[in-house]
């Protein structure tokens, strides 16, 4: 879901940079106010774990593949503001060091995967957390699904895609709607494990 350079019109790139910068700035403020210094390495470990998980491209018969994105998982473990910072650090390293996702489109990639996935995942988890494992499952699934739809809208209103928003949104929504089940299951698995074995680590920033 990492958008490369050339996919988005310049004004979309600029708008996405502005929105993402505002949310990141606000997140830094929130994390500074609510988190102890000792928790910062925990954000780093979650970010490092998500980077490592994204290295694993799960091949799916029929010629497609998907990797775990992890925004919802980060939000459940860290709270949404620290999760946005963790996901942003992953996307910046992927972009600058490994050329995964374009520089002009970095704002949009941060918006989709470090903001939409994170805050949607967090909202879904919070609304359903009394209902057990269904909460992290739906958080992971819906987080990635809406991130994919946001991505579909951004490319669909760009000239490179000939403004074919009627094609791009359904393509992204259908594919990631199906692949999102894997994201949901992985999110559920990790959250259940941590809740049982390390309950003190759940949402340190809350």
């Amino acid at each position, binding site marked *: *879901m990492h958008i490369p350079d050339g996919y988005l019109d310049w004004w979309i790139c600029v708008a996405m940079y502005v929105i993402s910068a505002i949310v990141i700035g606000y997140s830094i403020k929130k994390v500074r106010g609510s988190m102890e210094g000792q928790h*910062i390495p925990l954000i780093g470990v979650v970010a490092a774990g998500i980077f490592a998980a994204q290295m694993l491209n799960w091949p799916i018969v029929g*010629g497609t593949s998907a990797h775990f994105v992890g925004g919802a998982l980060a939000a459940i473990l860290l709270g949404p503001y620290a999760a946005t910072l963790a996901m942003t650090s992953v996307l910046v390293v992927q972009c600058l*060091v490994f*050329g995964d996702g374009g520089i002009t489109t970095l704002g949009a990639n941060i918006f989709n995967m470090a903001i939409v996935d994170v805050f949607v995942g967090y909202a879904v988890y919070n609304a359903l957390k009394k209902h057990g494992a269904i909460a992290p499952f739906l958080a992971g699934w819906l987080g990635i699904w809406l991130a994919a739809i946001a991505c579909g809208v951004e490319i669909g209103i760009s000239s490179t895609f000939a403004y074919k928003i009627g094609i791009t949104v359904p*393509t992204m929504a259908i594919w990631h709607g199906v692949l999102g089940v894997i994201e949901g299951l992985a999110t559920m698995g990790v959250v259940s494990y941590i809740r049982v074995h390390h309950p003190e680590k759940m949402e340190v920033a809350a």
Partner: protein
Amino acid sequence: MKKAYVAIAVMLILAPLFAWAADLVNYSEPLENAAEEAGAEENQSYSGIFPDYTVPGLNPYISALITGFMGVAIILAVFYGVKMAKND
């Protein structure tokens, strides 16, 4: 925390295996499918220091292994750096 580092190391060691398996099914991501359907082309002007997780001169699987550890090290260094700066 120790278990988390072990889990990260295991994923990184498995990365080359996944790279190989993904090649086997000739994979593409949904975003690439959408680009193909709409006739869009990417135009990457900057491709990173290690483009697409490859190290020049090394085969893609060893590259995946090395770049994985590199990425994790950079991210951890950033956050531990922030913590040290905060403690001063």
